[in-house]
């Protein structure tokens, strides 16, 4: 398939849960003639939406994995990634945003800007993704696009400008007024596929004129030409499109479109807006790092003739082996080409190249800069870069949050054990926020992830896809330990048991380090410790941080500085310095006033205003610190930092306390010290469990 790179759009569709992203994508596929029938998200017709291809997704009516597809719309090629709305699957959103050039933020016309919209918007800002907003569900009772647009301004700080007006609302929602063309658009035919474009209804003419004037006022900030034309009442659609595009690309404007995906209204104009306003790969400057030249930044160009550079953003294990989703940033990659995996320097041959459409695929011969495609037969990790022979270029990596919750899993029998291993190996490779480890003491397999639902889905997938029946333990919080003051060490490791002995001495201090997990500073002068043993010291200190002495969780935020020491010409070795470093660390750790840290979650609860008190109480009862609250036309949103350990079972409690009318989302906020009383209890519990373990031995 050959197309002009200026006519490629790589877009994501992101939103709060249940705002209708998947329904919208289904309509886009239908109008672009990619599918020939529309199916519902929850699969009432037994089919389910095309993009929710996983059985579990169809049952629960939520998107768990991001699916990729592409459509052709008016000479443009649009690659679409439909992304999950639940914050537990946030890595899927991050993955999508990393490789996309633009996005459509979908909002519910009744609920407006919700907590997950805020999270998604924050992610879009992080990756500088230009965006359009689509206010969906205008047919719903209580629909109010003006209020939602104000919410985009107030809550997200976006320069949101309505580009359309609704003709009727709620059950009377009939069509839209296009403020650029100053025409009314109605969506006729069985599935809204026939557009009827007419004059604006007389009753709306005045409103449309004034809203167009407001729109021009904002948009003309991005084009002197439009400003002059607007003053002379001669603004043409071309001038407006050009100015809006400039505003969107500079991230200073978010044009707002309206419709109802479920009622098949407003989708085709939204697709026109994607073509008109969102960037092509040529519009987005992409930076790679030249690993052969001290990681100097290199600006990539969407030139099909240049060295190929591609980035693996998602892996899936299927019946044909590992499928790697790639975004090509520069050059061309064809079947049979040799590419180099930047991280490992391994040469790999491209066996099979496919274009994805949900879980279906189409074999292709080659793909060029700007494209999103799938490779088969490549063993790699998420975040790997691939280049054709030439400089070793790597794309900067994605933000991967640390898991905050763990669960022990126990296979039901030997068969389940084998299948579970296969499943875990696949899941941990696909999802960098899903981790697996073996607990040395209990011998249990521990899985960690971003939330209860995240782990629940993987356990369910083990059962369904791998026939691995597993029993799960109670969820465990990923605590950490940290020091709170500086403490010195001066330790000598001496051992003589016949033959050559072990000798290492080192001095320095530990201190709290807020900027990362660990830093090692060598201030040894005059060779007190020979240079060749310094890496061993570093290794010893680092390994001491794997398990703290308070409750056995990893230690974070420590700067270790060594400034003195001693060695012996015969008895000193790497091993001796590693042992000495570990012991020195333990010695100083006790003096550095160590504390237990717990993950705090940023919890946002939304519900009718009358439940605000109940919501407050529910959060306070869980040791929540209320950060803020928003009141808006009968609705209230309360935001709080709540320890993760207190959030288990919250959804059931909230539902019963608010008659099911409030909902919440949460995402990791930060680690904070556990209150003294609780900390003492945890210490006592840990000591007693350790003692029990020792007695059993």
């Amino acid at each position: 398939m050959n197309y002009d790179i200026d006519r490629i759009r790589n877009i994501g569709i992101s939103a709060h849960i249940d705002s209708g992203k998947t329904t919208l994508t289904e309509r886009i596929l239908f109008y672009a003639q990619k599918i020939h029938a529309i199916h519902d998200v929850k699969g009432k017709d037994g089919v389910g939406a095309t993009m929710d291809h996983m059985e579990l997704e169809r049952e629960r009516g939520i998107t768990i994995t991001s699916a990729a597809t592409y459509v052709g719309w008016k000479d443009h090629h649009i690659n679409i990634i439909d992304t999950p709305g639940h914050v537990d699957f946030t890595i899927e959103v991050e993955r999508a945003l990393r490789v996309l050039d633009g996005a459509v933020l979908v909002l519910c016309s009744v609920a407006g800007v919700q907590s997950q919209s805020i999270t998604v918007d924050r992610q879009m800002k992080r990756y500088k993704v230009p965006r359009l907003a689509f206010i969906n569900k205008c047919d719903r009772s209580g629909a109010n696009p003006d209020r939602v647009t104000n919410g985009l301004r107030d809550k997200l700080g976006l320069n949101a400008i309505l580009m359309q007006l609704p003709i009727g609302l709620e059950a009377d929602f009939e069509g839209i007024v296009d403020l650029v063309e100053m025409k009314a658009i109605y969506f006729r035919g069985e599935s809204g596929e026939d557009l009827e474009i007419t004059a604006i209804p007389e009753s709306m003419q005045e409103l449309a004129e004034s809203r167009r004037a407001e729109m021009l006022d904002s948009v003309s900030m991005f084009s002197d030409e439009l400003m002059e034309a607007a003053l002379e009442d001669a603004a043409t659609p071309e001038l407006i499109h050009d100015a809006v595009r400039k505003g969107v690309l500079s991230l200073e404007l978010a044009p707002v479109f309206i419709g109802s995906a479920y009622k098949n209204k407003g989708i085709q104009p939204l697709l026109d807006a994607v073509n008109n306003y969102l960037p092509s790969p040529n519009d987005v400057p992409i930076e790679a790092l030249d690993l052969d030249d001290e990681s100097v930044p290199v600006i990539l160009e969407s030139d099909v003739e240049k060295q190929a550079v591609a980035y693996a953003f998602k892996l899936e294990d299927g019946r044909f082996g590992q499928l790697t989703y790639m975004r090509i940033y520069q050059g061309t990659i064809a079947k049979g080409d040799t590419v180099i995996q930047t991280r490992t320097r391994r040469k790999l041959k491209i066996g099979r190249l496919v274009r994805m459409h949900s879980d279906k695929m189409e074999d292709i011969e080659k793909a060029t800069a700007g494209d999103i495609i799938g490779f088969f037969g490549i063993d790699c990790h998420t975040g790997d870069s691939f280049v054709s022979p030439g400089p070793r270029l790597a794309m900067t990596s994605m933000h991967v949050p640390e898991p905050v919750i763990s669960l022990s899993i126990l296979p039901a029998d030997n068969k389940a054990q084998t299948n579970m291993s296969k499943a875990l190996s696949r899941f941990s490779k696909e999802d960098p926020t899903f981790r697996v480890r073996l607990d040395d003491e209990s011998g249990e397999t521990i899985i960690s992830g971003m939330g209860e639902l995240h782990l629940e889905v993987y356990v369910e997938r083990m059962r369904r896809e791998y026939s691995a029946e597993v029993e799960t333990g109670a969820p465990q919080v990923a605590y950490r330990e940290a020091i709170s003051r500086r403490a010195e060490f001066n330790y000598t490791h001496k051992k003589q048991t016949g033959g050559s002995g072990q000798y290492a001495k080192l001095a320095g201090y530990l201190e709290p380090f807020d900027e990362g997990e660990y830093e090692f500073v060598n201030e040894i002068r005059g060779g007190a410790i020979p240079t060749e043993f310094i890496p061993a010291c570093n290794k010893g200190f680092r390994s001491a941080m794997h398990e703290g002495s308070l409750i056995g969780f990893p230690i974070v935020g420590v700067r270790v500085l060594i400034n003195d020491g001693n060695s012996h010409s015969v008895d000193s070795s790497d091993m001796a310095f590693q042992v000495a470093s570990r012991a020195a660390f333990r010695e100083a750790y006790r003096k550095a006033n160590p504390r237990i840290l717990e993950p705090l979650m940023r919890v946002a609860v939304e519900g009718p205003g009358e439940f605000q008190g109940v919501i407050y109480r529910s959060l306070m009862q869980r040791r929540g610190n209320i950060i803020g609250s928003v009141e808006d036309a009968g609705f209230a949103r309360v935001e709080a930092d709540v320890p993760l350990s207190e959030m288990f079972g919250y959804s059931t409690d909230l539902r019963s306390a608010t008659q099911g009318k409030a909902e919440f989302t949460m995402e990791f906020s930060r680690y904070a010290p556990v209150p003294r009383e609780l900390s003492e209890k945890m210490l006592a519990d840990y000591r007693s469990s350790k003692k029990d373990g020792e007695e059993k031995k």
Partner: protein
Amino acid sequence: MTGLMFKLRRSPRTLLERDGHPGPGPGHIGLVMARAGVGKTAFLVGLGIDALLSKQNVLHISLDRGVDKVREWYDDLLLGLLQRERKVQHLAGIQLEIERHRHIHTYLNDTFSPERLQASLDLLMNFGDFVPRVIILDRLDFEHFGTGGVREIRDLAENVGAELWLACRTHRDGPQAEDGHLPPPADAFERYIDTAFSLDPYDAKIRLHVLKDYQKMLDEDLNILLDPTTLLLETGFGANRS
């Protein structure tokens, strides 16, 4: 940490300290007046930070910005204060400490009224275990809110024992202040105002005028200059007293 927090205080609020209160004290109502764009919001955030650094509970009310935005203002200002003292390593700890003492409340789409404020205060005190000692109310439209409204919110603050800070926009081309009175529109409700400041751009800085102090109108210029970015005093409170 407490020593450092004390040292970071640089808001003009420190000038009003009296009888052991870190600011003007409970039931006291303060007003900052300036033209659009001079920095009334930044000034109020500075006042809020000052109260938080003094471990006082602060209720910051915004009528047009979300919680995230207001929080960002506080975080940016705190970071700047710590950078100046070369103590950025304490950011996370102080942030956590001040968040325990701060509540941000936003009323969007004209939902603010004295009744709503009363309801919010009841909620905070009864369900949130939070009694504000300082209430900051930004972006109140006095022309529409009226003198009665100002009196009502003053009474509410007094009842909970909080000091209340408001910001009021003045107009370059509007009527000027009459002798012995606050500039319009604040002259209409000046009897409820205990302390009033005005801010004026002056030679790449902002000049702070104390218009009224403890119910007494002042006409002398104390020549207090503020940093134009942070709207804080050049010299810190702790530094003056160490």
